[in-house]
């Protein structure tokens, strides 16, 4: 009596199955989360109510626990959830289903023979929501909302490795805002911040979904273009340059005209590292600056 009461007041789900997957115990938490009454589900195969549980992984885990009496951990990272329940509370709004961390283990009789399997279900939705927020903060630039330099360098390394393995083209655009110091000096730093945000938004809208735009530092930006050769990258870069030039940026009573200079490089056979690709695009950007700004220049382009 006392023990069954404990199981009913626990803030975790507890399910007990027999060797034929039939439910022999379904605690109060499971009733409340699933909307399925204990009396209805007891004696039925769990798959009658949750057919999607019948995966090779679930069956393998079940067999393993029956054979070895070990525990199987269904991590939220890998499985998301075992039972598709609605999330609880405002933190759950970003998830379609409650995120769960589940453990499966064996229950033995007095002769030490495994007779039943238990599954505990813990709601970890709030933890995952917080974790996602923290994770986003580590990869996003606080001012502009686009990716930060760290994320770009991580992705660049991944794409560079892929490029070397699969010989798929990979290009990089480096660009910065022309005479940005003058904007700060003339209109103040708040206007400068607004310009940085606006340029990020304009450049972002000129990109494709697969591209990665990041603030590289100060008024310098970088755009990674997977599966794109130098000609394709030049088209994207020119689109960005024109979009920024054609946009008037309005801040309070001012209307600011902004241009950007862009350098474009492709990771060819001679490019030995992600750092070298950045250097090449940087060199092209320097050329664009030196030749009068508001220009798109490819690394090997003769001016």
């Amino acid at each position: 009596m006392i023990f069954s009461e404990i199981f009913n007041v626990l803030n975790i789900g507890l399910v007990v199955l027999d060797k034929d997957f039939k439910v022999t115990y379904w605690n109060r938490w499971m009733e409340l989360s699933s909307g399925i009454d204990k009396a209805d589900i007891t004696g039925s195969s769990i798959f009658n109510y949750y057919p999607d549980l019948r995966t090779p992984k679930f069956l393998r885990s079940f067999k393993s626990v029956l054979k070895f009496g070990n525990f199987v951990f269904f991590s939220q990272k890998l499985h998301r959830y075992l039972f598709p329940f609605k999330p609880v509370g405002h933190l759950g709004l970003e998830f379609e289903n409650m995120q769960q961390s589940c453990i499966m283990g064996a229950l033995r009789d007095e002769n030490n023979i495994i007779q039943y399997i238990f599954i505990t279900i813990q709601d970890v939705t709030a933890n995952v929501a917080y974790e996602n927020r923290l994770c986003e903060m580590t990869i996003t630039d606080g001012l502009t909302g686009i990716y930060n330099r760290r994320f770009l360098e991580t992705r660049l390394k991944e794409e560079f490795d892929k490029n070397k393995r699969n010989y798929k083209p990979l290009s990089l655009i480096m660009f910065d805002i022309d005479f940005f110091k003058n904007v700060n000096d003339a209109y103040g730093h708040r206007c400068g911040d607004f310009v940085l945000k606006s340029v990020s938004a304009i450049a972002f809208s000129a990109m494709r979904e697969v591209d990665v735009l990041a603030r590289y530092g100060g008024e310098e930006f970088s755009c990674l273009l997977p599966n794109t050769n130098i000609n394709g990258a030049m088209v994207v870069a020119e689109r960005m340059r024109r979009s920024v030039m054609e946009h008037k940026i309005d801040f309070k009573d001012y209307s600011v005209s902004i241009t950007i200079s862009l350098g474009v490089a492709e990771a060819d056979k001679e490019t030995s590292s992600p750092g070298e690709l950045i250097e090449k695009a940087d060199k092209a950007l320097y050329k664009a600056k030196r030749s009068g700004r508001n220009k798109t220049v490819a690394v090997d382009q003769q001016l």
Partner: protein
Amino acid sequence: MDNNTSSFTDLEIDTFQELMNIVFGNAAADLSEVIDIYVVLSVPQLKMIKAAELPEFIQNNIKEDIVYNTIIEQNFLGNFNGFALVVFPRDNESKFITLFRENKDMFYECDATGELEKEILMEVGNILIGACVGKMAELLNDSVIYEPPRIIVEDIQDSGVYQKLHDPKNWALVLKSTFHFEAQDLTCFLFLVTNNESIGWLKKALNDYLRQFE
């Protein structure tokens, strides 16, 4: 077993080796059934060593550059108490992942690259450890609780593995075995390490086991 196991009698050593042969034989057969892949487990090697020598022992026994291996660690609690390590050689990792991965395994954008792979290797490690520890506990009439597996990514020398044994001067009983997934030509290594307290219980359990045949 090493000669420095003064606390074990010859009969106990022979019994334990015999028991381990049974345990690992059963574990291999049941594992093959559970994961639908034919698995061969090598005859386990037993060794009593000082806890402080454990990292070096493990490093010498896998004959791989350990920095580049994924090592899964899992603690188990019971009278038979300790931790297990599964070492995946670098070249075999991706094959293991392909073997156990399901199409629906997906990650959020924010998850770091390689997290999914780590989770899959932890799942594989959990089954392999559970098979061996579970069978051993069953044979010795023990009931074991498992902690979730985790990944040790650093060099094992710096991983603090032997600090778990409380006192590096203590003895540790180490079992080493190799899993070979024959059709896929995949290999990984298992180390089971138990501490001083378990050794006392183990001696008693071995004597109880022997008494059955008297």
